[in-house]
């Protein structure tokens, strides 16, 4: 339904320039998309299909409406705007190099299902980028409506190569070779080329499902015909690429992707189950403490960093609109995603990322993909059983870590295990004596109270762990940490 668009400082999304027919921009809190005349005709064709309504209803296509009045447009457009769409805002933007295996696989299947539905009504997706899929909690949503266009006679599946580079090869690497695709996708915004993929696999993989055509033959043909661009294109045009051919290829690709599976090592499964059920007094009290904080007020976005199996992300969801569950280990995050998906959760977004080496800005001018804090600041951060990993295992000084947390301008629940804690002892054991003199409770409290207003402190009954609740400096009522504990 057309609606009024407010007039506010429009600004282009720096990651949306590759397709000049359709560009995303923002005005105030609105997410808008300007379409060229050609882009608008494609959108009108899309809006008249039956699958458009169907996929929008069940939330697999981003909720979208045509803006009634023409809003102010951002500067820098190279095609005149013929129409503007308003999209629903996705709570938190994430990227494939932060998704565990099943998230990338689900995004791939959504991409292919949309493509098959589009082909049935003589439309096609002009690209195959996982950056066009976002997640609302555990639910994949296709956000780039500008990717749909009317199918032209004799055209191939233009997005096939991109599908291989950004979906199929990463999934094959993880499923078949047990090699994490995250550094590859983070390393190259366009993904893994057929030649690179060929170099990563062995001749024996030729007989595995999906490898011969998509990897071996693909890289061979590319090597042989790569420099014959225009020539091949006109030959293909003459041959007349039939829609049935595209459908057959897409269906085969769907079967290949559907079959791919990856599961974390057995140890992760065991730990996942144990942590969900542990019940000693310390754990119970920690649950209560976190619950008290998260339900004390309404939080918008909560980050649970070092989320592990998501025990506290789930508690955080009781008092937060959205939760980001981040962990450096993709194993528990994979299992957490699967559970949340089975529950139909749309609140908790599961990402895997090493906080000592977080996602940077990538692409043109380092702005096409954004670093983590640039995508939305948290209102509350849970940093439970994390600080010893960052400061002792990754050597980040305690003051640096707390300073980073303060830079997020967020309220904070942080757990500090003392040097007597068994886990801290284990992490310190291989280190030279005296390497971490700053890992002391007094130093931690001094740094924390210098950058935050600490409102609560509580010691676990085992005595080796302390929990703190703090607000950004100047916004809380600090307690005296030098006073005796209670």
């Amino acid at each position, binding site marked *: 339904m057309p609606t009024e668009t407010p007039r506010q400082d429009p600004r282009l999304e720096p990651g949306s320039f590759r397709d000049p027919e359709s560009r995303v921009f923002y005005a105030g809190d609105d997410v808008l998309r300007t379409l060229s005349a050609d882009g608008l005709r494609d959108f009108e064709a899309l809006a008249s299909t039956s699958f458009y309504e169907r996929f929008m209803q069940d939330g697999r296509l981003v909720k979208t409406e045509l803006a009634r009045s023409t809003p102010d447009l951002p500067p820098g457009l190279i095609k005149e705007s013929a129409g503007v769409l308003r999209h629903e805002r996705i709570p938190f933007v994430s990227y494939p190099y932060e998704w565990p295996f099943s998230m990338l696989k689900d995004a791939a299947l959504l991409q292919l299902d949309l493509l098959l539905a589009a082909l049935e009504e003589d439309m096609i997706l002009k*690209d195959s980028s996982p950056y066009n899929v976002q997640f609302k909690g555990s639910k994949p949503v296709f956000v780039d409506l500008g990717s749909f266009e009317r199918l032209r006679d004799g055209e191939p599946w233009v997005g096939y*190569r991109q599908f291989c580079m950004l979906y199929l090869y990463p999934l094959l690497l993880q499923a078949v070779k047990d090699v994490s695709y995250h550094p590859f996708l983070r390393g190259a915004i366009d993904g893994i080329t*057929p030649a690179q993929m060929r170099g990563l696999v062995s001749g024996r993989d030729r007989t595995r499902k999906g490898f011969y055509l998509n990897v071996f033959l*693909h890289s061979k043909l590319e090597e042989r*015909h790569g420099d014959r661009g225009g020539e091949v294109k006109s030959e*293909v045009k003459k*041959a007349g690429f039939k829609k049935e051919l*595209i459908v*057959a290829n897409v269906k085969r690709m769907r079967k290949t992707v559907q079959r791919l599976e990856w599961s974390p090592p057995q140890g992760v499964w065991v730990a996942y189950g144990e942590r969900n059920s542990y019940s000693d007094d310390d754990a119970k009290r920690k649950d209560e403490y976190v619950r008290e904080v998260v339900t004390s007020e309404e939080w918008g976005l909560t980050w649970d960093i070092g989320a592990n199996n998501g025990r506290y992300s789930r508690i955080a969801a009781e008092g937060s609109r959205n939760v980001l569950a981040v962990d450096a280990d993709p194993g528990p995050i994979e299992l957490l995603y699967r559970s949340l998906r089975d529950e139909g959760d749309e609140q908790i977004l599961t990402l895997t990322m090493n906080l000592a080496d977080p996602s940077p800005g990538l692409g043109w001018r380092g702005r096409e993909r954004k670093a983590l804090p640039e995508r939305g600041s948290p209102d509350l951060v849970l940093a439970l059983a994390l600080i010893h990993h960052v400061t002792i295992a990754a050597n980040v000084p305690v003051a640096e870590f707390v300073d980073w947390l303060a830079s997020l301008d967020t309220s904070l629940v942080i757990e500090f295990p003392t040097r007597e804690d068994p886990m801290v002892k284990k992490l310190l054991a291989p280190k030279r004596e005296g390497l971490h003199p700053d890992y002391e409770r007094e130093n931690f409290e001094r740094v924390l109270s210098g950058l935050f207003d600490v409102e609560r402190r509580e010691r676990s009954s085992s005595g080796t762990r302390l929990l703190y609740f703090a607000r950004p400096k100047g916004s809380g009522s600090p307690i005296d940490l030098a006073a005796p504990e209670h």
Partner: protein
Amino acid sequence: MELAYLDPGSGSMILQILAGGFAALAVTARLYWGRILTFLRIRKPEDEVVRANEQADSA
């Protein structure tokens, strides 16, 4: 051919034709296999029609 903003890749286009050809070949082969079975009276003729339709759907 007016192509979209993304380069489909020459090798990738040829592959699609070959792959599509393989798919077509496979369907044809299965169809003829069905006919052989029918000829040898291992399968009844109506099975063949149903199967051929199923194959066309899943190709």
